[in-house]
């Protein structure tokens, strides 16, 4: 149905944000050959900043020069103009703009009602917006139908193809603390070609966890980002975000017996580029395999940070039966080269049913200064005659009190 010379013209332009014009300052001094000539030329240039002509970044807005790149999560905006190039009035013009992706077809037109008539040299304008949700080829399909004066119904359409690229690369790593806390390190890499201002990178935890962001150093009332004053990411730069997840109390009790894969949450990322061009993405649900603790889990609940040399101190250990059976446990305490246990070794701790826990206060002292590792605890299940060894369960800093006094 398309005539050789199209009477109606579809003109489409992607509306990325305008850019600010930059000058190229070339100056000279009064004594130089051109005298004030270069300065005068710069002052007369409308695009310079008056009073500070050598400032490169001007205020003049310029329209986008080309289609540019579009990334997942950004908003695709486009100006669509249907222009009547013929010399005759046409009637009942219906303009449709659809976006065809690899999985679906979306209608982007603001209005779906026909325009009664279009005079020669006039146009129908529309600005469409669409948040891009898929990677890969997208095709903007613009179609127009209209009736000529002779009553002939005409229809034509145009395709505009573009590729949507991936803007970010996200990698994650989990660290399991001895307590029930889980630390999540997320590496976010900017794989676009322009700097990105990271407006928000937050972890939305699943219902089991509370999250603390560890990307701000608080000093006084004001928190300062660990990434410095300007929170932007250059192309190919990677930034590490750290989050601490704590199971909510109602789940914490059960944490010892939680096994397998748990859903931690997902990262929500909002970025901005030139003049506030915005993009937003979420990762898929991040999953983590709960660490296996074997049959019995021992964690240190309480230990001083710093202790005096050769001075006994108290620690509290927690023993949880993670197995499916009841255990009858016996505790042995073996001295190491540096750590010496106080109390009776080989005592019975009694029966522990599955999932039950037991707090164990112990006393110990160190004979050597420095950072010392607490080791040498042995639990033996008397039913199965199986011994579990617990070494390096915590560290403590051992100092000499006399030296401190002298200072």
């Amino acid at each position: 149905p398309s005539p050789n010379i199209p009477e109606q013209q579809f003109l489409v332009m992607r509306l990325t944000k305008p850019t600010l014009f930059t000058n190229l300052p070339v100056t000279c001094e009064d004594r130089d050959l051109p005298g004030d000539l270069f300065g005068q030329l710069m002052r007369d240039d409308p695009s310079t900043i008056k009073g500070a002509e050598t400032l490169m970044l001007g205020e003049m807005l310029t329209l986008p020069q080309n289609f540019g790149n579009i990334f997942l999560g950004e908003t695709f905006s486009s100006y669509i103009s249907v222009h009547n190039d013929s010399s005759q009035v046409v009637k009942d013009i219906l303009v449709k703009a659809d976006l065809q992706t690899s999985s679906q077809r979306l209608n982007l037109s603001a209005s779906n009602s026909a325009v009664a008539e279009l005079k020669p040299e006039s146009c129908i304008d529309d600005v469409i917006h669409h948040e891009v949700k898929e990677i890969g080829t997208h095709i903007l399909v613009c179609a127009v139908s209209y009736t000529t004066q002779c009553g002939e119904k005409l229809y034509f359409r145009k395709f505009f193809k573009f590729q949507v690229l991936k803007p970010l690369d996200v990698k994650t790593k989990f660290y399991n603390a001895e307590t029930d806390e889980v630390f999540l390190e997320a590496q976010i890499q900017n794989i676009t070609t322009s700097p990105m201002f990271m407006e928000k990178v937050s972890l939305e935890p699943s219902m089991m966890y509370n999250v603390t962001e560890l990307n701000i150093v608080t000093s006084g009332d004001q928190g300062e980002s660990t990434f410095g004053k300007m929170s932007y990411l250059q192309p190919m730069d990677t930034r590490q975000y750290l989050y601490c997840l704590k199971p909510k109390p109602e789940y914490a009790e059960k944490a010892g017996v939680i096994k397998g894969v748990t859903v931690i949450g997902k990262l929500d990322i909002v970025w901005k580029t030139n003049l506030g061009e915005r993009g937003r993405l979420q990762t898929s649900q991040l999953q983590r395999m709960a660490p296996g603790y074997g049959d019995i889990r021992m964690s240190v609940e309480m230990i001083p940070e710093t202790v005096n040399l050769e001075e006994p101190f108290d620690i509290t250990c927690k023993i949880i039966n993670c197995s499916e059976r009841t255990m009858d446990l016996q505790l042995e305490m073996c001295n190491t080269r540096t750590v010496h246990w106080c109390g009776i070794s080989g005592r019975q701790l009694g029966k522990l049913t599955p999932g039950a826990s037991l707090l164990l206060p112990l006393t110990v002292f160190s004979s050597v200064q420095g950072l010392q590792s607490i080791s040498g605890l042995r639990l033996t299940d008397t039913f199965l005659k199986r011994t579990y060894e617990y070494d390096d369960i915590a560290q403590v800093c051992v100092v000499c009190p006399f030296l401190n006094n002298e200072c």
Partner: protein
Amino acid sequence: YQKLQTDFEHSRLNQAVTKVHLNIIYDILLQQDSIDLGAGEFVTPQEDSSATLSESLMDRLNDQMMESVMISDSPNNSEEDDVGPIDSFLDGGLEENGSSGNKKEESEIGQNTTEIKVPVDQKEQECTKDDIKEEIDIEEQIQIVVSPQSEAHSPVVIKSEDPEHQSPKGTSPKDEPVPVCTIFSQGTQPKSLAPDGFQPTLIKSPSFTTGSGGGSDEAVTPSKMTAPLVCQPSPSLSKFFTDNGQANPASDFFDSFTAPSSFISISNPNADVSPASTPAPLSFTPEHQPPTPVSVFGPTVTEPTTKPQSPISQTVPSLNLASSTPQAQPFNQLQAVFSGTDDPFATALSLSEVDRRHDAWLPCEETRKMLISVATQQYGPAYVDTNRLTMPGLKFDNLQGDAVKDLMVRFLGEQAAMKRQVLTASSVEQSFVGLKQLVSSKNWRAAVDLTGRLLTAHGQGYGKAGQPTSHTTDSLQLWFVRLALLTKLNLFQNAELEFEPFGNLDQPDLYYEYYPSVYPGRRGSMVPFSMRLLHAELPQYLAKPQEALDRLHNLKTVCLAILENLEKGSAEDGSMITLTQENRQASLKLWRSRLSRVMYSMANCLLLMKDYILAVETYHSIIQYEPQQRVQLLSGIGRIFLQVGDVKMAEVYFQDVEKSCQMKARDPTHTTCVLMNRAFVYLSQNSYAEAHASFLEVLKIDPRHPVTNNNAAVCLLYLGRLKESLGQLEGLVQQDPALYLHESVLFNLTTMYELESSRSTQKKQALLEAVACREGDSFNTQCLKLV
């Protein structure tokens, strides 16, 4: 995929289908490869199938390697569990290592494992094309993954008539800065070029000092009396240097613009030596020569000057006698102007203080030692090693032309193009006056041509690079103007090429001390500070910003050292000269302003490098040197933040601007500035209507503000009001061409023409005609988007 199918013609589709299939096979192989490569980190598919599910998962989860996370889609699309299978397939196909499979939100992780296995199985079966076709019919998603990759064979018939819709691969990033504009509006007519606007120092050439002390002069340039100087003109310049009967037209011509006496010239004695004919006399090394320079110098010079004489006079063709006749008159006029200057001694004395202040520079240690030995007459300049000398020459001799006229010939015909009247290098006085006229009328290409002629006359013409020459204040000023104009014209490579023989601008022969007889008592750098700055800035436009920064840091160091010297009570160069308080203050002011200019260049360079943190810091530090520019600088920093996307920080700086404006007396430009900043913030928040309203408010204060008018029109386009926007810009260009025939405005206008109608070319041609009437040859025609 089927939806797509319905849209496209069937015949084309059938062609494409087979190609798509081939691609699938290829893809499968690729995918398998990439999984194998990842074996160090992840289990290969084969292992995967043998291992039990939980084991393989455990392996992966205990692995301390970073894991890729699938960015499934945008948040608005993804509820907890509604990720379509396409996404997973898409990612499966796109992720290089199969690891992402583990991260997908699906109830059973096992599904992902099988998913990775799919291509392997396919491959193992060694399917025929038809088999694959079947499989693909079942698994639609894979087809979808593949079809975008078979881009070239895609059945989509798309006419990308609009330049905006090029394939993204070919286009540059969207934030690429707009080509930097060097076109200046022809707002007010430049200052009068009457001789009284002329700085006396500019014309103070060495030959005027020698006019009174001819004896000492002869020692330096013994050749000039013995043999007339003939410059070898470059082919295209030969038109200019026509043989009009005089024996030495070129040297005559050179003298005419530097000195009142037409036969005294200190032009380089070797200017006439053709490169092949004789070795350069300065290549003699000191150890071979007795310490009496005159005796050595004489014979070596006279010998070459006689030899090349005849061939050169033959090569200078007697072309176009007509063009030389009009030149005679300006020369005479010029002489009259110059002879009107006062007693040269008086001028020199009054200038010495200013000279010292402006010319001060700290040469590197080696150069400094050499200059001291020249001053103490340990040996003459002739013994300086040639590789320590500056031997510049034009590197290209083609005329620059006029792109506007070329476009007119192409689009409007020869007839219309004939009407274009612009000044050329030949139509103005062959002097600094003519040069200034060309610069101010924005005929920078012609001005470059003229500097070429003037430098040729000085013996530093085309092909003269690498040959010994001597420098004067004038020759270096000419080089500065030439290189500055090349930079303004965005001809950066040409500028770099011609800058190259100058090295780091620190050779001994670029200091006055090197020419004790020509510039008796004068010290410091012959190279103007502006030229050093230009030299330092240039690499940033040639994708070598680091080098530019290094050079700028060197300049900064020297500026700081000089300021320190002044504050300590010594002269600029650290010598123990007592300066009057007045002179010291003047000098401190000058050097502070130079330092701040260097800082500006550094900040601009950092901005170009997109090192926004340092750029902002540097701009901020300029405020202490230029407190009167506080408002502009803070606003500029705010705009940098907007460019980065950090709207909040931008607002912080804009608030600072508002505070500064409140503190000062009410200044309409400050109100404008505040409103402008607000408009930019609205723009960054996608509130185009509010931005437009703010721009309109600025126009209430200053209706002729060109930037605001342009910006308001741009806002209208984003509001879907193309016709209005176009009408406004068009009206502005017609009413006030002096202000609006600016590269960026015209670019916006032509872009809108393209969007408005298929007949944009005619409208652009009308713009070309408007440009042709007003703009000089330096107009950047690219913004008209005619070609």
